[in-house]
């Protein structure tokens, strides 16, 4: 089975996605600027690590080379992302720029450069966010993720019928970042989720695996919200 490329594989969601693909028998190219992906790749069968900073212009070449070492890829999961939160009046323009570069420009560069190399019938899955619908103190992140949702539509149209392109938009997910929140802040966020809890990273990974599978062979250009109902709550 051809490989799945997972960016941001050292993070909680990325690691869960990589482990999910590996459990399904797929080779995984684990991409991250954090060299913990080397250890992750060591743990997984047929995994290839790729330590690169996606904000760098030559990152797509490094990822393509790693994919070739894995024997070729059929799946690209654009999961890597960063936040630089701040109230809009004080939000630094450089922080705005960096968030757009990593969360929007980098995945689109990867998609454009790797799409010709993905196997026929392959798929690109962009990890967007429920925040694309709007969030306080995240003008940069919201703009970048909304842009990624839109780009998913454009890519789906331009790459059909050879490749499918979809997005997954997680809401609140249990990660080291959310676990470090003050309990009252975390409690307020959970209270807005109809499911009454944050998602486990594996619950996001399961949806990614679904979209990469033949079960989703007629699904393209869509954004699937994995947010416990938060996107339809008041």
């Amino acid at each position, binding site marked *: 089975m051809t490989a799945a490329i997972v960016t941001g594989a050292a993070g909680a969601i990325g690691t869960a996605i990589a482990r999910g693909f590996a459990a399904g028998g797929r080779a995984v190219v684990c991409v991250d600027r954090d060299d913990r992906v080397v250890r992750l790749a060591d743990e997984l069968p047929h995994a290839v690590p790729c330590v690169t900073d996606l904000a760098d212009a030559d990152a797509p070449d490094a990822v393509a080379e790693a994919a070739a070492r894995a024997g070729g890829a059929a799946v690209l999961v654009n999961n890597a992302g960063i936040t630089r939160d701040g109230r809009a009046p004080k939000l630094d323009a450089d922080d705005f720029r960096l968030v757009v570069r990593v969360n929007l420009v980098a995945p689109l560069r990867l998609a454009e450069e790797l799409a010709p190399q993905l196997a026929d019938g392959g798929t690109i899955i962009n990890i967007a966010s429920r925040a694309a619908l709007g969030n306080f103190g995240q003008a*940069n992140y919201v703009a970048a993720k909304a842009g990624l949702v839109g780009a998913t539509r454009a890519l789906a149209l331009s790459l059909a019928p050879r490749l499918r392109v979809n997005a997954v938009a997680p809401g609140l997910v249990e990660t080291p970042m959310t676990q470090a929140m003050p309990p009252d802040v975390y409690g307020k966020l959970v209270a807005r989720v109809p499911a009454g809890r944050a998602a486990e990273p594996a619950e996001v990974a399961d949806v990614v695996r679904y979209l990469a599978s033949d079960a989703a062979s007629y699904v393209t250009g869509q954004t699937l919200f994995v947010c416990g109902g938060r996107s339809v709550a008041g």
Partner: protein
Amino acid sequence: MLLFDATDGIGVDGLEDALTRAFEVIRRALDNGEAVVVSLDDRHVQGLGTTGQVAYVHGLVGLVRALAIEGHKPGWHVVALSSTPDVEPSERLRWFEHLGRPGPASGGLVRLGGEHLGRVPV
């Protein structure tokens, strides 16, 4: 009122500059107490066009939403208006003037022309 017209011809490599500039220009206007209307080509909102252009336009829609949420207390008014080429310029102007008046539409996307009907909403 600031009428922010989305630039055409944005490629993936131009996204960073274009969205950052949009943020700075729109924020400055809101800080100065101006209402802001962001003008978009509805075909790009639908997802039609180059990847970079569609990402830019959707990024602007997200920016409008985020700034409206943050601007609730200070009373910022920022809204997006998209239209298809067949919409008469006079009709677009009428909507710009209407949406440029502070009111409850802040954060919204108003779409003129019927091409978006039957497609997944944005």
